[in-house]
């Protein structure tokens, strides 16, 4: 029944999905944290930039952003992403698009985490002579992160599934292979769906469980 699978590189495709997820997760965690820093900074210009970025990018469909990286960044502006191999170029463009998009959700999660840290924590740090960067980096963000691990897990799961949009610019991840299979094995439609869906569950279910456990483990007691 599953013979047809041997004709396709399903595992390879899911490996691309995993790679897209990991690179985009790392990138959006970094960029999202910086954006959160902008949004709470005392500098009005940075705050305005953060707010504008979040509101524009978060409200733009991901497909538009991903296709925009290929048509806009790559084909119109000639950004090569440091490689001439077309496949790697598309992979990198898709990662960039996913980072730009997912970081907005990371930023807003972290910002809500910052709001769970009592204002007295920052006041005490300021009263001791710590500067804004130190107050944020040493006192506020470490506590904020611990309280938003569970919501960040949801963002990571959403990101894992959002990587399927990369197929729109020809990245051969799981849904790209699925489309091929559907075209050629139309009699096994539900089986194809089932296999791909199972693959995603295998990726995302442990993410939620493990990070849920970590969230409990590192919670700050007050």
């Amino acid at each position, binding site marked *: 029944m599953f013979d047809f699978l041997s004709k396709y590189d399903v595992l390879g495709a899911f490996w691309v999905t995993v790679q897209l997820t990991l690179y985009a997760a790392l990138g959006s965690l970094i960029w999202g944290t910086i954006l959160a820093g902008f949004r709470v900074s*005392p500098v009005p210009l940075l705050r305005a930039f953060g707010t504008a970025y979040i509101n524009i990018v978060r409200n733009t469909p991901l497909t538009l952003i991903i296709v925009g990286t290929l048509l806009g960044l790559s084909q119109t502006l000639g950004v090569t992403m440091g490689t001439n191999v077309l496949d790697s170029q598309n992979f990198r463009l898709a990662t960039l698009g996913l980072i730009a998009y997912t970081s907005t959700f990371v930023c807003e999660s972290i910002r809500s985490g910052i709001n769970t840290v009592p204002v*007295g*924590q920052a006041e005490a740090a300021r*009263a001791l*002579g710590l500067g804004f960067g130190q107050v944020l980096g040493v006192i506020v963000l470490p506590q904020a992160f611990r309280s938003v691990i569970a919501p960040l897990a949801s963002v990571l799961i959403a990101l894992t599934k959002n990587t399927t949009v990369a197929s729109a610019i020809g990245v051969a991840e799981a849904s790209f292979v699925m489309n091929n299979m559907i075209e050629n094995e139309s009699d096994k439609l539900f089986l194809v769906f089932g296999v791909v869906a199972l693959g995603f569950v295998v990726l995302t279910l442990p993410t939620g469980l493990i990070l849920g456990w970590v969230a409990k483990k590192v919670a700050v007691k007050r």
Partner: protein
Amino acid sequence: MTEANTESNSAAPMIRMQAVNKHFGPLHVLKDIELEVPRGQVVIVLGPSGSGKSTLCRSINRLETIDSGVIEVDGKALPAEGKALARLRADVGMVFQQFNLFAHKSIVDNVLLAPVKVRKVSQSEARKTAMELLERVGIANQADKYPAQLSGGQQQRAAIARALAMRPKVMLFDEPTSALDPEMVQEVLDVMTSLAKEGMTMLVVTHEMGFARRAADRVIFMSDGEIVEDSTPDEFFTAPKSGRAKDFLAKILTH
């Protein structure tokens, strides 16, 4: 162990407030405040709630901004938010009503954090000083616990140790015992009393009348954003001049 920094400007008063005004919306919380605190003096600020005494205390290290007037600490006017203000705050110890210990750091890490991050003291030296300070406030055996594991009185003593670790020139206390269970008030006041005896310049907002009598050099009474009385504790408690102070004392001392 807590002697003030030596490069101080010994002619100027430690704290000087001149014509300080502040509003919260329509509420005039500080009205033309004039106050000089000479070095080494222990000043207790009393007054009913909402009289502006906490705001006064917090404005001295600019946790509250003021609308007009001048505030000087050790002869230097408070700078705007930035590196210069951070440097000034490092020299002004502050103890809060809610302790505000860093919840994700152990007690000893709370105490050594600012010396390491701000004064750039080495980790090992800062730890040694931190342990000495914790010994002094009587909670060295709690050094590796987290704030949530300590009683309120222990947390507040740790917070005092944290402020002292920066070797401040002056200490501000914003109702340090108001959030404590009654049986824990004394242990915190004992630490503050010994600090006062060692010559630390202190400004203490409190409702502890016994402590005010024992430890204060001077009592400031505030009401509706004004300094109504400025006298010695003896004078204030035995012969208050203003009606508002008499009224306040009658309510406090007869319960």
